[in-house]
């Protein structure tokens, strides 16, 4: 004869199973679902280092949803949940007061909970940032304070100068490249860690200025493991009368970056 107690337990077990299955069974959630888009969970990536974490509020049901943010005085990192591995078009931008910050690079990761893309933006100052994708505001990020300039343990030798240190090392290079800064569309450069089989340090372009001896090039790189960085300037793309000319550079140099 059946009794109520075993039946009750069975019903509770069934309900639990249904609940577990529909909520993703221990963190395995469907990366493409709307629930994922509005509750994006993304851990801080390893390369965020000592960056200070911000509070992220995803404000719309956009499928490309911000889930984590951190910054220091060199970079602002925002992690997004993606429905698949394709990077969003248009790419999300950050509004920092009156300034719009565009991504300088990123890292795409496949995690057990779906696809995550960590965009890197130039350093920001405002306590409140707005995440915008196209015409749509997709999130707001709050930070407790403005990132303080950290003491930088690294130094270099001219024509390279360390500007700031953090998750990235920001460097200014007084290059011998003879271009008008306003006409340079892009420089294609590789920065390589000489101590690690010339592994890329992910050269991030932070802009150009005219210098007395050539183009002043500001860039960020991941901190190298060794104390020497090789720089390989491949191409410059220069605007000329509505066209863009590719100039092969072939510039090779290396510099010391040590404490």
């Amino acid at each position, binding site marked *: 004869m059946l009794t109520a107690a075993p039946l009750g337990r069975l019903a509770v077990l069934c309900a639990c199973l249904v609940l577990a299955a529909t909520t993703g069974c221990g963190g395995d959630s469907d990366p493409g679902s709307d629930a994922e888009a509005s509750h994006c969970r993304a851990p801080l990536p390893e390369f965020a280092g000592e960056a200070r974490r911000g509070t992220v509020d995803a404000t719309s049901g956009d499928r490309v949803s911000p889930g984590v943010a951190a910054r220091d005085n060199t970079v602002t990192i925002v992690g997004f949940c993606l429905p698949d591995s394709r990077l969003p078009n248009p790419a999300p931008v950050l509004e920092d007061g009156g300034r719009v910050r565009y991504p300088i690079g990123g890292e795409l990761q496949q995690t057990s909970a779906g696809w995550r893309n960590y965009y890197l933006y130039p350093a920001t100052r405002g306590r409140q940032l707005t995440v915008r994708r196209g015409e749509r505001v997709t999130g707001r990020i709050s930070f407790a304070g403005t990132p303080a300039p950290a003491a930088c343990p690294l130094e270099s030798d001219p024509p390279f100068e360390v500007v700031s240190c953090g998750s990235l090392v920001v460097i200014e290079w007084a290059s011998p490249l003879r271009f008008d800064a306003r006409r340079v569309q892009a420089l294609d450069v590789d920065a390589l860690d000489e101590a690690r089989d010339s592994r890329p340090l*992910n050269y991030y372009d932070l802009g150009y200025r005219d210098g007395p001896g050539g183009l002043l090039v500001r860039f960020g790189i991941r901190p190298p493991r060794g104390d020497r960085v090789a720089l390989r300037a491949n191409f410059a793309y220069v*605007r000329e009368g509505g066209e863009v000319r590719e100039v092969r550079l072939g510039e090779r140099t290396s510099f010391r970056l040590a404490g």
Partner: protein
Amino acid sequence: MLTLGRSRLAMLAPAVALLLTLALVGVGQADLRKSEETKHRVRQVLTIQYSTKYCDRSGERFFNFAYKVNSWSRRWRRRTTGRDVPEARFLAQAFGVRCNEEPFQKRVESSLRPCFGCDGTSRRWTPDYHGSPGWPYLYSPEDPMVYPVWALRFKLTGTVTRRSGRELGEICTTVTLYGGVPGC
């Protein structure tokens, strides 16, 4: 202990049946999700690092968002040491437009032997195998009729075997930065 009468049991039975059915469907879905990310108890992790830049002619507007792939890394995780991946293949394809609007096309293929527990990693992980393509900044053209094939995609496949050497099947991971999603 409360004893159920025949009529109360008859009332409860459909509810229990419904719950059981829902539970089975739910568990089936959860298992499917897991099998998508881990097959034959082995998981491949493919990470792409890139820099970005706008390739605009005027310098006043922001369009033609371009990617420069700096590096990729591949590693494998196995849930049990009874699994092996004796050989894996990696394919990286770039069909895009350079910042001077010239089309660019490259295809890189390689094979490697993932080594679990090598270079100080645990026996469940392989080291990170890094590679860098040396490609320029690439963007996808606005008009797909001009360049009908355009993509920036990566595909990693590996054959999973038991310790005995018996083949269990292939695992496949794809990453598409832009363009259509390729099937494995």
